[in-house]
């Protein structure tokens, strides 16, 4: 049975402030006076045509359900969704832009969300994008919704482009004596013509670093490809099979995070890693997506907030935030203000 979209629209109109809620696996901006709109009824796959590389599902659908269905047809969500094991939903994944290490290869949530229906702050149901993989008609609302944290619309359904899943994976672990040594190796990897699925940099105790380079594709060519990556790096240990899968699963689920720690995502470029790393030296941290995303575990959010502000970096607390999950320096701009005014003129969404 389809969930009642009109009820959702009416609920938006009936409240002064509203806040969508999915599986509550990640943080969201909060306001005490906001009415909670629970989206758990908006669950299930609406349409899936494997030969189209397209799947549409209600926003409250657990990502795990979609992944299982796609896997039956040898397909996957290439942006590598996070916290799936904890019950993350598609809507929350879009709203928090929760993409993982393999986003390195083909792109993030923004690159695979091709359509969505959402309810805006007026209670209007709006369709953006469509159900075909290529589409240039109309404003690109799907992209706008990625990372919007429920501040611009309540996602009702989402349509993703999907890809055939690599038949096999292998990972090379390269231990480096220091962050500097790892960062010196990084551009060799990001600029080489080998098709790498993920490059993560883990900081260990005592300043040592390790690069984990994931390669996926047809099983036939894989050993040869791993040899070449190892030759490029000068050394390294190949990980395959269950160990390999477990390593990346643990990365996506943030199993390294201690229970009381906050998890903070900081987008950046590799050149900015040394300065950031110097100010978070005592925290657990890893640099993902070829040095484009820092994941930092901290018990002291105010200190990290100040450090990010000093570096002109923005952060998002994904897990265990007490207040507003946005920390560091968030730039606003006239375009963003106008977009918010158009989609939520009455200020119903929690900003």
């Amino acid at each position, binding site marked *: 049975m389809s969930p009642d979209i009109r009820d959702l629209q009416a609920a938006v109109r009936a409240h002064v402030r509203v806040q969508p809620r999915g599986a509550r696996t990640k943080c969201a901006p909060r306001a005490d006076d906001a009415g909670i709109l629970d989206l758990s009824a908006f669950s299930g796959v609406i349409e899936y045509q494997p030969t189209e590389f397209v799947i549409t599902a209600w926003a409250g659908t657990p990502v795990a359900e979609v992944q299982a269905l796609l896997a039956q047809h040898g397909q996957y969500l290439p942006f590598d969704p996070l916290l799936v094991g904890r019950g993350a939903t598609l809507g929350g994944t879009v709203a928090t832009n929760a993409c993982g290490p393999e986003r390195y290869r083909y792109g993030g949530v923004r690159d695979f969300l091709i359509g969505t229906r959402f309810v*805006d702050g007026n209670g209007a149901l709006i369709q953006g994008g469509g159900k*075909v993989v290529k589409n240039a008609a109309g404003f*690109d609302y799907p992209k706008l919704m990625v990372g919007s944290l429920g501040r611009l619309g309540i996602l009702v359904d989402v349509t993703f482009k999907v890809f055939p899943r690599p038949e096999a994976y292998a990972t090379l672990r390269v231990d480096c004596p220091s962050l500097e040594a790892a960062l010196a190796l990084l551009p060799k990897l990001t600029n080489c013509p080998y098709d790498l699925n993920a490059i993560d940099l883990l900081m260990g105790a005592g300043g040592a670093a390790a690069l984990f380079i994931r390669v996926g594709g047809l099983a036939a060519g894989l050993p040869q490809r791993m040899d070449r990556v190892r030759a490029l790096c000068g050394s390294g240990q190949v990980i395959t099979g269950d160990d390999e899968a477990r390593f990346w699963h643990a990365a996506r689920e943030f199993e390294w995070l201690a229970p009381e720690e906050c998890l903070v995502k900081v987008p950046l470029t590799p050149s900015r890693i040394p300065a950031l790393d110097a100010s978070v030296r005592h925290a657990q941290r890893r640099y993902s997506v070829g040095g484009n995303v820092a994941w930092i575990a901290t018990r002291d959010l105010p200190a990290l907030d100040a450090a990010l502000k000093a570096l002109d970096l923005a952060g998002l607390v994904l897990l265990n935030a007490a207040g507003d999950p946005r920390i560091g320096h968030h730039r606003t701009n006239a375009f*963003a203000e106008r977009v918010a005014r158009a989609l939520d003129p009455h200020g119903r969404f929690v900003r």
Partner: protein
Amino acid sequence: MNQSAFLAALRAIFPPDRLLMAPAALAAYESDALTAFQARPVAVVIPETQSEVIAAVQACHRFGVPFVARGSGTSLSGGSLPVKEGLVIALNRLNRILRLDPQQRIAVVEPGVVNLDITKAAAPYGLLYAPDPSSQPICTIGGNVAFNSGGAHCLKYGMTSNHVLGLKVVLPDGEVAELGGESLDSVDADYAGLFVGSEGLFGIVLEITVRLLPKPETYRTLLAAYRSLEAAGDAVSSVIASGLLPGALEIMDNLSIQAAEAAVKPGYPLDAAALLIVELEGERSQVEAEWERLKAVIDASQPYLIKVARNDDERMKIWKGRKSAFSAVGRLSPDYIVQDGVVPRRRLGEALAEIEKLSAKWGIRVANVFHAGDGNLHPLIMFDGREPGALHRAEELASEIIDLCIRLGGSITGEHGVGMEKRQYMPRQFAPADMDAMWALRKVIDPDELANRGKVFPAGEAPALRQVGPHPLEQAGVISRE
């Protein structure tokens, strides 16, 4: 509008050689690649700096004059058609690559940079800018951003928006905003993503940060010739079902094969009903493994001829034929309309059969070249503009093809944009609430509708274009057609 005061304001910003007002000088700017539409602007300015662009936009805002940004004028949807009595801001001299950082794999460029020049600048580092519209040797990145241009490699790598990380823009009232950034990832709503493809309605881009990709190590390209379009379409489905993800999957029908062969002699088999081009690209050993699988799939699809590019020259020849198809059709017909509707891939066969029927019904030849991998059709509807009523009939046929795409669950445009050409079809694809929301967004960002007025939204919603009927602008004398 006080026109003389407006022109005086422009004179204060631009020297005479970069402020065109003489009719002869304006003529070159009256159309873009959709030549059926023409409109004469009051002036054309040719800024050389970002601050001159901002000053021009501010002048337009102060005097209430609509403006249209223009690069090389290659829009096939009339996207850079001037507004009558409005200003054209020609961005070709903002053509600097401000920064190319191979280590971070990004380039920061101005809007007038030609698409292919980014790849040329990145090539020494083994990098490239992936989106490759057929017009890439001349089209500018600013236009690509405004229209979210595609190309032959979209299935795997996406369109322009998938390669734009950050933008610096001037909004229609002259305010400057920075959207996105340099990282591949973000913790804010994707405002740059919304701006890309907004067809100039949200303002003008001043700086674009694009991501660069490593140039694939190797390519394997094959041509397969079939006795029917349907067989070629089935082959595409088989390739997709096999789990392969080719960089490009293109089909050409017999008319376009003939045209391409006459124009650039790519060595296509002239008797083929359909030609399939498949290209694998990537790392050598992966591509070799994929190639074995691809050959098996193609063999099973029973083409009567398979040609494999043995070297880079042969590969370029295959692509030259494909990319020249549009202009080559000009040899078969004095005029033609290009459509770029999209259908779900599984319905390609149905769409082509239907187009064939429509072609017969109207007695109009239609050549088909298309990005089969993503269901993006390119019917080239041929007519002779000198024949009375021929353009009108061609447009009727085009309209039926667009309806067909919507009916099959697709889109009215895959990569050319809505522009002037397809604006009347928007309400067929989008519900009234969707149209209202887009209009509301436009009005909040640009209350006076100065930026690219008259595009995307059907006539009647813009105050200057209240007339109803198939060609309200013609009735109003705003535009004329050849």
